[in-house]
Every structure is written in C-alpha cells, then in structure tokens.
C-alpha cells in the first residue's frame, strides 16, 4: 500500500472539484454541501490539524447520504439519481484518500462522472471545460505515481499536457471512423423536463404562447435552391377533429400509418436535412409536402411525419419535399366525411349561417369562398399576439365579436366555415418561415415561428394549402416573425435578452456568428452519426474496410511516431556537415575500442591514435593540422580541408580494418 504524497492529495482535490462543476446546475443543495465539507475535512487532515475520522463517524455519514439520496430522488430513477449516487460516493471517498488505491478509485469514478456531464450539457464550452477536466484528472493520476518527495507540483500537469495533447489527433481519427450504432438498450432521459413545442391539440391561443419563447425548434439545410419565405411551411401535425373548443388529431388518420398517401409532384423533390431539438414528443417537421418519411418515422394519412419514439435528444434526419404537388386528388368518401366533422348540430349558429350564405353567393366555388373569407379577414380583423379570451361559441365569438386573433384563431375559424359549407378541410400546425443564415447556409427555426394554416380539398386537385393569416397580416408569411412582432410587448416576453438578437450592428453580427458556430457544432459533433457516412465518403471515395484501416493507421502511426521520437529523445543530429563527419569518425574509433576522452582535443586524440594505428599516422597528422587551422586560424577554406582530412581518416580506418579481417 503506497501512501499518497501531499502534492498528490492536492491534485486529487483539484480533479474532484473540476469534475463536479458541470453538475452543480442540478445537484441538490445538500449534496453540494457534502462535496464542500468532505474535501475541507480532508484538507484539515492533510494539514495535520485533524486526525482521520473514526469508523462510526464514517458510518453515520454513509447512512445520512443514502437517506438523502432516497428522499431526493424518490420519484426519479433515471440518470440523475445514478450520477448523484456516484458523486456522493466520490465525496465520501474524498475523506479517506490515503493510499494509492483510494486515489485510483476516486480518479476512475471521476472520469466516468465527467463523462455523464454530457447528458446535461453539450455546448462547445462544456466540451472545452471537459477537456480541461481530463487534463487535471490525468495529472492527478500522474501525481500518485510521482516521487513523493518531489516538490515540483506542476510537473504532473506538464506530463498530462504532453499525454493529452498527442491523444487529441488520435481521438479525432477514432471519432471520425468509429461506427455509430443505435442504443443497445433503451434508456430514459430527462422525461420529466417540460419542453416547449407544438402540442397534439390546439385551442386558439396555444400557439401565441409559443411566440413567447425564442427557443430553438430545429435547423435545416437544403441540397438545392432554398425555398422562398412564402414556401417555408414546415408541416408537423394535422388536426381534423374539432370539439367546439380545441382542435385535435383524428385518431385513425392522423396518428397512425394507414396506407401510402397519394402524392404527385410536378418538379424534382427538394432534399433537405433537419437537426431537430428534443421535444419529448413524437412528431417531427417536414417541408410541405413531404414525399418521403424521415428515417425512424412514418408519414400519417394526413401526410405529417411521426416518429416511433419521442424525441428525447437532439436528432438529425433527412427528408425531401415537393413544393408543387397534388395530394390525394381522390379522397374516399369516409375520409371526406371525417374532414367535414363539426361539433353537434347547433354550435356556433351565426358562423354556420354565414358559411351557408357565402356558399350560396359564391355559387358553390370553394376558391371564391376562401377569397371571400380572406377579404373579410383583411378588412375587419386584426392580428395580435394577445387576443381577448373567448367563451361560449368560440368561432362565433371570434368571427362576430372580438375579431382579433392569432394564426390559430384564423385557421380554426376558416376550417369551421369551410366545413359548414360542405368543403372537406383541416387545420395544419407546424412552423412557418425561419431565419436564414447566409454565411453557413442554413435555416434556423425557433419556437416563435410556430404557425397554423388550413388545407381544403377539391376533387382532382387534392388538398390545397391556404393561410388565412396571410390575408390579415401578409407580412407574417413574407417576413420573419421577429421582424413582424418586434414591437409587440407579448413577443418574446419570456426571454427579454433575446430581443438583442434582432438588432443590427456588431452585437447582432456576433450573435449570428455564434449561432452559426453552434449549428456546426450540433451538426458535425453532437449529431455526427448523421454526417458520418457522407463525410467518410467524401474522404475516402468509397467506404470499405481497407480504406477505413488506412484512414486509421496512417494518422495513428504518424502520431505514435512523433510521440516516440519526442519521448525516446530522438538523437539531435547536428546540421553542420563538419561536425557530423567528425562524429562519425569518432564513433568508428570508439567501435574499434578507442573512444575519445571527454577532455581530449582532436590533436591529442590523433596523436594518441597514431600510436595505435601507425599505418594511418599521416592522415591523422593532417587531421590534427586542419582542425587547428579551423579552430584557431578561423579560415573559411580550412573547413573544406578539414572535411577532406576527416574523410581520408575514415577511409584509412576502414581499409585498416579490412586488412585486419583478411589477416584473421
């Protein structure tokens, strides 16, 4: 049992605290307290003021910690409870790190705990911080194998930097080529966390809640021309059922996959990729109209993407969209009936009456009907993020009394009117617009871009998208939401700092660049599995085992070679040809059993050698003379002569050896 030196104990403390910092954001206060008290105790022991605690004290501490953990994490049995247990163990171990083995346990568990921090934070800063933690832990590991009497406390840090520095390129290579496989078993992650995002039901007013948040919803890149702002309808959910208060999805048509949906496009599909933030919900987004389901998901009959599992972590997926399309030109009768559903017979009588009147006046043409509604909205309605609350018959109340609303109100009311007139229709929820980042060529869509619009169906033309919000506030569709709402006090009221983002000047530029950096980070690091195949194809042309092996081994051998060269002290070869030649000659003499003494001049040495090798006395004399000329006379041409003299000696020595060999 090797005892730890004082320097090593300090290093353990440093590694422990560095490991802890990223977890402070969620740790219960008593655990933070424990993590301060136990190292403090260790320091008191370290400085000799206290003695090691009695076993009974330790037992009480362990019991208290177990009790605390059970009380704090009763309902939660996920990641946090596990990590909290590990941290509590580390904190308790801190008291009694005394031997090398204790320190090993502490450091190995610290390594794992610093890895679990990524389950809570994944920013660039977190990664850099974690790199620093690793350097500290490796230094602490080195410190326990260092001479206990050494008082150069920074020496382990230097060693650690040398190890970690050269490990980085190897890590990069491994990161690039290591195959990413799906989870081996299902693991729960942050299920209790409430996330903002679209909900599976829409009461008018719900979406205006989302505009209070500037949280990122998703980012998208396109493999083709970027769709115009008016075309950026990101479809997430279809609501076909209205109960008088809220719109919900039709269970059989909009929640499950039933059959292939009939979708025809006139143009090539536009391929794109989405990096989608965790929402804890199974629905994704797809650009109108999705022609292929993203991997791991399917398209419902309402042609909205639905995932098999909730999105509990950031995912990326690829899909494609038809911007000019015909969706379901033929609608079976039972579907048509479903999309004509209205609550009861008697709800919202004024709206029904209005719809019937318009239907008569427009001569039964749905397009004219919609235009009529748009004209009404445009003239008499206003668009606001904080409309008055509705009660009773909500559609009536909106259309005839309040006449103010948000996209949800307009979409819901128009769908109601269309259905009342006998036109199959539905509400579509998703996101509209987004902020285009010119430098990095990607689109950022935030929660305040959430939107709702309407689709109605016509025989032969299929589902037609109309956006009543465009009628009342056309700038909503053509501009970014942030420009539009910038003056509305309700917009982004939850995140006041975010308003800075939309200013101009260096602050906004900086924000945009930071956002671009974050996007690259998400795309290339945090969601690397989505890019891996493409990157490898780009690097290798064709991905096969032999090429992957080369991609691994060439950098591996290079790095190991450099490390070995530095670590094993590559003999520094002189750049001076004269010195190199001289060194070679002296080495040859040494091989023959005549090393040059450290204090011996070349003259003395050649004199001595001429007694051993009388055959080459002449060459040796010339050598001594030339050396003297170079050293003391300093004539530049003497160098050449010396070089020649050395070469002559070398040859003479070689031939004398050959002669000896022949004799024996």
């Amino acid at each position, binding site marked *: 049992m090797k005892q730890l030196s004082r320097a090593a104990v300090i290093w353990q403390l440093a590694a422990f605290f560095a490991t802890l910092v990223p977890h402070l954001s969620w740790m219960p206060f008593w655990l933070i307290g424990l993590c301060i008290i136990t190292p403090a105790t260790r320091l008191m022991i370290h400085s000799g003021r206290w003695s090691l605690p009695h076993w009974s004290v330790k037992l009480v501490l362990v019991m208290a910690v177990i009790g605390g953990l059970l009380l704090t994490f009763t309902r939660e049995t996920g990641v946090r409870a596990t990590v909290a247990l590990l941290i509590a163990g580390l904190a308790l171990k801190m008291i009694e790190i005394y031997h*090398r083995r204790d320190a*090993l346990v502490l450091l*190995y568990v610290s*390594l*794992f705990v*610093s*890895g*679990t921090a*990524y*389950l809570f934070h*994944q920013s660039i800063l*977190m*990664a850099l911080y*974690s*790199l620093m933690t*690793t350097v500290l832990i*490796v230094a602490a*590991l*080195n410190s*326990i*194998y*260092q*001479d206990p009497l*050494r008082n150069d406390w920074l020496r382990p840090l230097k*060693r650690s930097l*040398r*190890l*970690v520095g*050269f*490990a*980085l390129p*190897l*890590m990069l290579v*491994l*990161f690039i080529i*290591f195959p*990413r*496989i*799906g*989870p*081996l*078993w299902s*693991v729960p*992650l942050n299920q209790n966390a409430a996330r903002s995002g679209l909900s599976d039901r829409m009461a008018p007013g719900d979406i205006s809640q989302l505009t209070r948040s500037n949280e990122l919803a998703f980012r998208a890149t396109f493999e083709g021309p970027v769709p115009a702002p008016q075309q950026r309808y990101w479809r997430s959910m279809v609501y076909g059922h209205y109960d008088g208060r809220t719109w919900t999805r039709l269970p059989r048509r909009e929640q499950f996959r039933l059959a292939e949906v009939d979708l025809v496009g006139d143009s090539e599909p536009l391929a794109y990729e989405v990096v989608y933030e965790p929402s804890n919900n199974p629905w994704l987004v797809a650009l109108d109209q999705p022609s292929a389901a993203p991997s791991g998901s399917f398209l419902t009959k309402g042609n909205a993407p639905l995932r098999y599992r909730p999105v509990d*972590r950031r995912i990326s997926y690829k899909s494609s969209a038809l911007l000019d399309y015909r969706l379901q030109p033929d609608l079976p009768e039972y579907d048509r009936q479903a999309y004509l559903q209205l609550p009861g017979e008697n709800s919202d009588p004024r709206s029904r009456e209005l719809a019937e009147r318009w239907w008569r006046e427009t001569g039964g043409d749905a397009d004219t009907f919609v235009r009529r509604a748009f004209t009404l909205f445009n003239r008499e309605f206003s668009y606001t993020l904080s409309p008055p609350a509705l009660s009773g018959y909500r559609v009536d109340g909106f259309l005839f009394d309040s006449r103010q609303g948000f996209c949800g109100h307009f979409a819901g009311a128009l769908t109601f009117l269309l259905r009342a007139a006998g036109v199959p229709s539905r509400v579509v929820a998703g996101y509209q617009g987004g902020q285009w980042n010119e430098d990095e060529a990607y689109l950022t869509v935030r929660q305040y871009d959430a939107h709702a619009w309407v689709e109605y169906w016509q025989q032969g033309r299929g589902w037609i998208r109309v956006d009543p919000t465009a009628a009342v506030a056309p700038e909503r569709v053509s501009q970014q939401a942030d420009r539009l709402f910038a003056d509305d006090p309700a917009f982004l009221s939850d995140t006041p700092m975010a308003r800075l983002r939309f200013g101009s000047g260096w602050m906004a530029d900086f924000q945009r660049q930071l956002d671009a950096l974050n996007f690259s980070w998400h795309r290339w*690091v*945090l*969601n*690397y*599995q989505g890019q891996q195949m493409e990157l490898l194809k780009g690097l290798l042309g064709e991905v096969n085992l032999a090429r992957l092996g080369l991609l691994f081994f060439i950098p591996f051998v290079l*790095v*190991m070679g450099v*490390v*070995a060269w530095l*670590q*094993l*002290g590559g*003999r*520094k070869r002189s750049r001076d040809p004269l010195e190199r030649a001289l060194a070679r000659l002296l080495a040859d003499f040494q091989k023959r059993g005549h090393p040059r003494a450290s204090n011996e001049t070349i003259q003395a040495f050649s004199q001595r050698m001429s007694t051993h090798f009388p055959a080459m006395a002449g060459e040796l004399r010339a050598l001594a003379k030339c050396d003297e000329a170079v050293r003391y006379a300093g004539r530049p041409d003497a160098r050449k002569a010396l070089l020649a003299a050395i070469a002559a000696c070398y040859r003479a020595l070689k031939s004398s050896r050959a002669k000896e060999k022949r004799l024996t």
Partner: protein
Amino acid sequence: MFWGDRKPAVSLARRLRAWSLSRFPRRRTVTLTQNRIYILPTGAGAGFCVVLVLLLLLGINYENNLAYALTFLLVSIFVISIIHTYGNLAGLQVSALAGRPCFRGDKAGFTLQLTAAPKRDYEQLCLCWDGGVSQMLDLTEERMTQVELACDAPERGWLDPGPLLVETRFPLGLFRAWTWIDTGLKTLVYPRPVSCASPPPAGGDGGAEVSGVKSRGPEDFQGLARYEKGGSLHQVAWKVYARGQGLHLKQYAGTASEEIWLDWVTWHNGSVEEKLSGICFWALEFHQREQPYGLRLPGLILAPGSGESHRQRVLKALALFGRESQE
C-alpha cells in the same frame, strides 16, 4: 478460498523469466533496449479499461457523441502512455558494480550504477532482486546515480542475489514495463558472529608455545606510548587526550607477545555452524583489539596477522568452510 493451484501461473512466470534471461549473456553493464523490455497493462490499467467500456456504453446508449469523444480521448491516452512507460526504461544503462559481504541473517548489499541516456529523464524506477525489497529512484537532474540494493542472506557462503528486476509504472500506472538482468554479481555471507567462551588453547603448530586468549583487564595495562601515525584509534587513550596531553596509545600486556590461534580442532563442541559462529565472533573481537590471530581450519591455515586484509581472508575462509565447491 482457492480457485485452484497457483503453481502453474508461477511456474509459467518463472519459465518466461528463465527464457528472457537465457536470451542475453551475463554482463555487468547492460543498456536497456526494446529487445529486453517487456510491457503489459497492470491491474490499474485493466480498471481503466473497465471505465472506458462504461463510458463507451454511455456514448452508445445515449447516442452522445461527446461521451464517444471522451472515450476515444482516454483510449488514445492509454495507448500513448505505453510509449511514455517504455521510454521511462529504454536507454537506461545498468551497471552492476560490487557486492558488500555481510553476516548470515543480515542483508547483503549490491551496488548498482544507473546511467541515463542523453537528454532523457527516468522517474520512479523500481529495482529489486528476485523476491527482495524494492527500491524506488528517480534519475532526472543527475545523469548517473549509484544505489545499494539489499538482499537477504539466509545462508553462509557465496550469495547470488539472482536476476535483477528493473521495472516502472510511470507515468500513469496503466502499464508496467520491466526487464530482468543477470548481473553475475555475488558476494560472501560470513557466519553469524555469536559470542561464546574464550577460545580454548589451540593445538600447537609444530610444537610452538600453546597460547589461549587472556582476558583483558585493567591489570594488563602497561602504560602509554606516544601515538604514531597509523596507530589504531581503538587503543588511543582518549581520556588522556581529553586532558590536553596529546594522543597516546594504551599498551597492554600480551598484545604482541603471544600468538593467538583460532583452531577448529580444539574449539568448543557444537555443530559446524555454531563453531564457525564462535570462531567468527572471536576473529572480529581480536581484529577489534588489533591483536594478531591465526586461523586453523581443516585443510587451511592462515598464519597470525592483523589488519583489514587479514580479517577478510579469515572471514572468507570461514564463509566458504565446507562450501569450497561453490567457488
């Protein structure tokens, strides 16, 4: 609890060692090269690998690429530390200088000299004889160091400490690099001196006067003589010197007059080792008193004499008594 006989593992390790030793001739000075440095992960290294596997599982199951990255960083550190550990042994020159004799039951010491390769540091080198106590040392600022490595001496005679083990776990303890060196060093183990009654009068050598040892008492004190250079410090009259009267030697009766013989044949009865221990004790005693003494063993006679070289001759004869074949 025994899971099985541990002997096969031990004998395998021994066979490996024997094989490794047989690959190189016995030499006093050895430079450690990749030919003779072996390197394998330690238990701590295996523990590290367990942590790596857990981190990899974390990365896989949570599809967390940062956890992957951390795992790969640690894997790379693990691999690179092989070179660091190897480099902490490679190029080191180990010279076996000399052995220091000891008495049976004490520890014999062997002096080794370690020389660093140019521009290289060596930290936490661990040296030990087969099964002996290990010694740690660093070779960073100085280029060369000497170390005396102890070895148990349970038997009288020549002591062969066995192969020298040089190992290191520096810098991270994940790997152990080691080598065995057959230094060929050996040293003498003298009988353990055990006090016993005064030597009996030895059988005369060709009828010479028979003499035992007279116990030294105050009555034998004859006087003081001026100290001359080379005189024994044991006989200096320190009290006189302390009084400021200069250095004087105490003169005893019989110190030079009678010959003392330590004779095997006439020695007190006892086992061979007991007798040798007794003779050894008195040899040291006479050496201490600077009284010339002779040794008579079956087949060997050392004429009375004194001084360090005489003492060494006597002790060597005692150490090797009955073990000449080892020489």
